């Protein structure tokens, strides 16, 4: 099993969710996060006082998936979240040792 984590632009989230659902992803964890990469932040001016806004709001998606589905999921996220401009985000994959479904105690693939 693998943990797929993606950080994407907030306005792309709905599109990504639909694409993943069509593919067959049945659940995910989503959080509102902030951070920065090459996009950096921006400057805001209030009554002449400048503020460097270092952090940019993003959506983080976490999906635990079977090894075989991982490449497809990464591909779907990459294609649907893309605008082609700096700040589109990142997707990364990490190995997962164990998964337990809290309700039933099912383990690993049965728990997905």
């Amino acid at each position, binding site marked *: 099993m693998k943990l797929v984590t993606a950080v994407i632009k907030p306005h792309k989230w709905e599109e990504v969710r639909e694409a993943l659902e069509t593919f067959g992803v049945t659940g995910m964890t989503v959080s509102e996060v902030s951070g920065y990469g090459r996009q950096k932040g921006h400057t805001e*001016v209030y*009554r002449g006082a400048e503020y*460097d806004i270092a952090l940019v709001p993003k959506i983080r998606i976490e999906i635990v998936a079977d090894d075989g589905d991982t490449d497809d999921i990464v591909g779907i996220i990459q294609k649907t979240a893309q605008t082609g401009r700096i700040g589109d985000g990142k997707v990364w994959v990490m190995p997962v040792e164990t998964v337990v479904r809290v309700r039933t105690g099912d383990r690993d693939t049965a728990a997905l």
Partner: protein
Amino acid sequence: MDGYYAWMIVATALVLMMTTPGLALFYGGMTRAKSVLNMMMMSYVAMAVVGIVYVLWGWSESFGPKSVAGGLFADPFTLFGLKDVAWGSYVGVCFQLTFAVITAALISGAIADRVKLSSWVVFLPLWVTLCYFPLAHMVWGGGWISTHLAAQDYAGGTVVHINAGVAGGVLALIIGRRVGFMRDPMKPHNLTLTMIGAGLLWFGWYGFNVGSIVLTGKTDAANTQQFMSETGVTFLNTTIATMAAMLAWLAMERVMHGKATSLGAASGIVAGLVAITPSCGAVNVVGAIGIGAVAGAACAYAVGLKFRFNLDDSLDVVGVHLVGGVVGTVLIGFLSTSAAPGGIDGLFYGGGLTSLGHQAGAAGISIVWTGVFTTLIGLAIKYTIGWRVAEDDEVDGIDFAEHGESAYDLDGRSGGVRTPVPAAHVKSPVSEGAMA
């Protein structure tokens, strides 16, 4: 004059709305999310404290019959607790009460995020007693300024805005900068609140300015005639000066910083209203547009100066109210026309320098008077009960430290209820269903 009486009831309620919630929202949106409740509370508390002080000795000290100390203030005890004041005058008392309230509340913007509520509660009665009531008496109550200068102040350029602006600057200096001023970001946390506040202030300001008419006719017919013409002038001037100021502020910041902002629009509205406050009965349409435009541009420039002086006038009480108040008061000397209700010609209308001298004199006296007495009060509080909350409390957020609350619970993850709820009040939908 039952029409006038009805209007004054409405005008009084309108001015009350300027402080709660108008000013509270305007200021609240400009603070950080961790101190918005405290900022709003400073306005709400000012309403209650100053209002009660006003009926106890404020009315007597401002408009009482016994002028003392050469006309610097009136005897605060003559009409103490509105003794011997006729019911028919109560609406007039309440109208003036709301002015004292908002003037004191305006000061809070200069000292946002860092002042103990208890110190604010101690400051309010002292300040209105030593600064507001005397100036109200000097300008409107038949006191020194009105008997020595032919200065025009229709609704409070000196008494309200210069007064609050100077006091705000003095207190910001005495109390000191917020922790992290010029280092940490202190940007407005909710400009929609500020926009709503500015809109409510504008709406309420019609009560403030148009309600400040003083009927001078000898007969009812003359008063009706004055009421039904003068209110048109003050209403229109209040409107267009504010519009001009908003556009001027937006143009100024577009040139200086590249963008026309919503905070600039809200601030420009207030700057224009401040400047037209003393002058709405003194100028014609052109004069009102001129005063608004100058005030908008001047205040947009002035709000940047605090960073140069390293003075944490947090929400620009000096930059908007002192500067706007001085602009409105002094420009009367140039733009006043005898064709307006005030009936005095300024420099541009052939009146020479006389009016300008009187206007500058009234502004100067106000600045000195309130500067001296606010310094005394500010230092007295600083070296007795102290002004500031603990540094840790300020950094963590004054809302929780002073009030035990937080303004926003956006994620709903606050945890369970710790207070035990009496069993009788616990209703279980399951058992009700079973009984039915």
